[in-house]
C-alpha cells in the first residue's frame, strides 16, 4: 500500500504530512513540538466540523485524531472519520486518547482508524507510529492488543479467514504486543520478518473493524475502563 498522494503539495521524500485534531490547544502545540523533523504538520483542528474542513482541504497522509471532540453530533473522533470517508478522503487516521476506555477505542477503530495510542506516548514513539500508519500499517499499543485479546478471546483460533476469530499466529503477535514488545522485537521473538508482523497486525485490525461479532460492541460497552 503506497501512501504517496498526488494531491499533496510538494514534500520532501520520506516526510509525512499530518493534521492534528484535538480540542486542547496546549496538547496540539505540545504534539507539534514532539513530532520529529520528518513530520510536516499541515494544520490543526479543534472540533468535528473544523476537522472535516481542514482534512478535506489539506488531504494529509495521516490525521492524529483525538477520540473525544466537541461539535458534530457528539460522535467525536469516530464521527470525523465517518464524515471524511464519506467525502472520499485518502488520509489515514491514528487515534489518540487519554480515556483508555474500551468503548471509545473500539468505536474509533471500527470507524476506520488504523491505530490507537495513548497521549502519554513519547515524541520518538509518536513519530514512529505516524510513519507506520502512513506506510499503510496498523499501530497497536499494548493496551489495544489487550482489548483485542479480551474481545476475541485468547483461545479461539480461526480456521481459514474467519473474521470473528484470530489465527494462532495473530494471537501470538497480539500477546507479544500486549506484553510490551515492539514489532521488531515481536518479529525476532517469533522468528519472522517485521513485514510479516505488520501483515498480521493489519489482519487483526481488519477483523476488529469488519467483524460482525455482536459481542465486540457489547463487550466494549460493558468494559468501561481498562
Amino acid at each position, binding site marked *: 500500500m503506497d501512501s504517496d498522494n498526488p494531491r499533496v503539495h510538494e514534500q520532501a521524500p520520506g516526510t509525512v504530512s499530518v493534521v492534528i485534531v484535538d480540542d486542547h490547544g496546549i496538547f496540539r502545540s505540545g504534539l507539534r513540538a514532539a513530532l520529529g523533523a520528518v513530520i510536516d504538520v499541515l494544520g490543526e483542528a479543534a472540533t468535528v466540523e473544523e476537522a472535516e474542513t481542514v482534512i478535506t482541504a489539506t488531504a494529509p497522509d495521516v490525521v492524529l485524531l483525538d477520540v473525544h471532540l466537541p461539535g458534530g453530533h457528539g460522535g467525536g473522533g469516530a464521527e470525523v472519520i465517518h464524515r471524511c470517508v464519506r467525502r472520499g478522503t485518502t488520509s489515514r487516521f491514528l487515534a489518540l486518547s487519554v480515556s483508555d476506555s474500551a468503548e471509545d477505542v473500539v468505536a474509533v477503530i471500527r470507524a476506520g482508524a488504523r491505530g490507537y495510542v495513548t497521549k502519554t506516548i513519547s515524541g520518538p514513539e509518536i513519530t514512529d507510529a505516524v510513519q507506520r500508519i502512513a506506510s499503510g500499517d496498523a499501530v497497536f499499543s499494548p493496551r489495544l492488543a489487550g482489548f483485542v485479546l479480551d474481545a476475541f478471546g485468547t483461545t479461539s483460533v480461526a480456521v481459514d479467514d474467519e473474521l470473528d476469530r484470530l489465527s494462532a499466529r495473530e494471537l501470538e503477535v497480539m500477546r507479544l504486543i*500486549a506484553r*510490551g514488545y515492539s514489532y521488531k522485537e515481536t518479529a525476532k521473538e517469533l522468528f519472522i520478518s517485521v513485514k510479516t508482523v505488520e501483515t498480521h497486525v493489519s489482519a487483526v485490525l481488519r477483523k476488529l473493524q469488519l467483524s460482525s461479532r455482536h459481542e465486540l460492541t457489547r463487550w466494549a460497552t460493558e468494559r*468501561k*475502563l481498562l
Partner: protein
Amino acid sequence: MIAGVCAGLAVHLGISRSWVRVGMVILTFASGAGIVLYAWLWIFVPTAADRAAEAGRKSGPAAFMHGVGADPGLLTRSGDRGGNAGHGRAGRCGPGGMHGRGVPSGVSASSGSGASSGIAGSVLPSDSGIRSGIVGSALPSGLHAPSRAAGSGSTGGSSTPDGVAGSSIPGGSGVPDGIMGGSTGTGSAGSTETATHATTTRPAVGLLDPDAWRDRTVSAGRREILFGTAMLLAAAVLVVQLLGVDVNWGFLVPIAVVATGAALAWSQLDEVRRARVMNRAGAGRVGGTLRLLAGLVLVIAGVLVALSSSGSWTLTVATLVAVLAVLAGVGLVLAPWGLKFWRDLETERAGRVRETERAEMAAHLHDSVLQTLALIQNRADSETDVLRLARAQERELRQWLFADPARDPGSLAERLRVMAGEIEDRYGHPVAVVAVGDAVLGPAEDALAQAAREAMVNAAKHAGVAVSVYLEAGPEIVEVFVRDRGPGFDLSAVPADRLGIRESIHSRMARHGGSSDLRSDEDGTEVRLRLPRPVRSDA
C-alpha cells in the same frame, strides 16, 4: 375436624377428643360461634411443627400477647404430659401442648398466667416431665418469679375445662426459645366466647423483665392485632344477635367490606414507607398495585351495596354506573392537574439529583485535582516531583472517572493495578498494566501477585525505564509478564546470595505449583510467571 384444632385442644385440656368435637359442633349451631372459634384457633395457635421450627431457629424476636376480651376470672392452665405431647397429634394443638413437640428433650413444666389486665404469660424452668399448670388470673406481674414456678408445678394436677391459656418453655433442655401461649375461654354459658391468645416466641433472656413485656406487646405484629380485632368484633356481633338484638346484616356487611378495603389500601402506605426506609425501591410493586386495586374494589363494592341497601341487583348496577360516571368525570377534570403536578415533582427530583452530583464532583475535584495543581506549581523546578504528582493524580482521576463499581477489588487484575500504582509512585517510572481476563484472589493468586510485584520493583529499580505488565488469565492457566526495556543484566553475574529473584519469585511460584523464568538481553528484561489453575470440581 379439619386442621387438627380439636385434637390439639383435647390434648391440651386433657379430655377426650370427641368431647371437644361435640362441643365445637354445639357451638357452631350457636349462631356459628364454633366456626369462629375454630378458625381463630386455627390461625393463631401454631402447629407443633411450627413450634419445632421456631425452637430450632431460636430467633423469635417478639412475643405477643393480646388480651382483648379476656375474662379476668378466667382460669388458665397449661402443661402437658410429656408422653401425651409425644403422641401422633398433628396439625394444630392447644398452646400448652406445644412444648412437648418443640423441645426434643421432652417437656418441662410450665406455667401460664393470665394477668388481670389481659394477659401475661410466663415461662419458668422447672423439672422436666411434670405436668403443671397454674391458676393464673389476676396475678401480679411479679408472677414470673421462680418461686411461683415451684407453686405451679405443684398445682399441675388440676385441670380446668373452661379455659386454656398458657405458655411454656422447656426448662430441662435449656433451650431458650420462647413461649407459645394461647387461651380460649369457652364460657360456661356455652354461647359466648372470649378469647385471649398468646402467640409467637421470644427469647428466654429478658423473660422476667417487665419492660421487655411492654415492648413485646407494642412491637407485636400489627396484622395479628387487626385480625384479632376483626374476629372479636365478629364474635361480639354474633353474641349480640344471640342475645336477641336484631342485627342489620344488610348494613353491617357493607361496612365491614368497606373497612377491609380501606385497611388494605392504607396498609400500602405503611408498606411504601417501610420500603423507603429499607431503601429497596420498586420491591413488591406488583403486590402493592394488587393490594391497592383490591382495596378499591372492596370499598366501591361496599359503598354500593350500602347505598342500595335493598341489595337488589338492578339498583346496584344502576348505582355502579352512576358512580363510575362521576368518577370518570372527576378524573377527566383532575387528570391534567395531576399530570402537571407529577411532572413538576419529577423535574424537581431530577434537578436535585443533578445538583447533588455536581456538588459531589466539585468536592472531588477540589480535593484532588486542584490540590495537585497547586503542588505542581510549587514544585515547578523539580521535574521528577512534577511528573510523579501528575501521574499519581492521573491515575487517581482515571480510577474515579472510569472505575466500574461492580469490579471486584479482590481480583488479581485490580491487585496488580494497585501494586503498579504504588511502584510508579515510589520509583517514578510508569508501570502500565494490561489485563486480559481476570482471576479471583486465592492463596496461589496472591503469591503470583507478590511475585509480580517483586518483578515490577526490580524492573523499576534497576532498569529505570517504563515497565509493561501483562496479565492473561485463561481457564487453565494464569500468566503474568513483567517487561522493561532497560539495559538488561547478566543472569549468571548475579551473586547466589541475592535473594530477590530466587526467593521472592522462583521459590514463591514453585511453592504454589507455578513456575517462573527470566530472560534478560540487550532489548531488556522480562520475567514470566505461570500459575496453572486447578480444575474446579464445581465447574
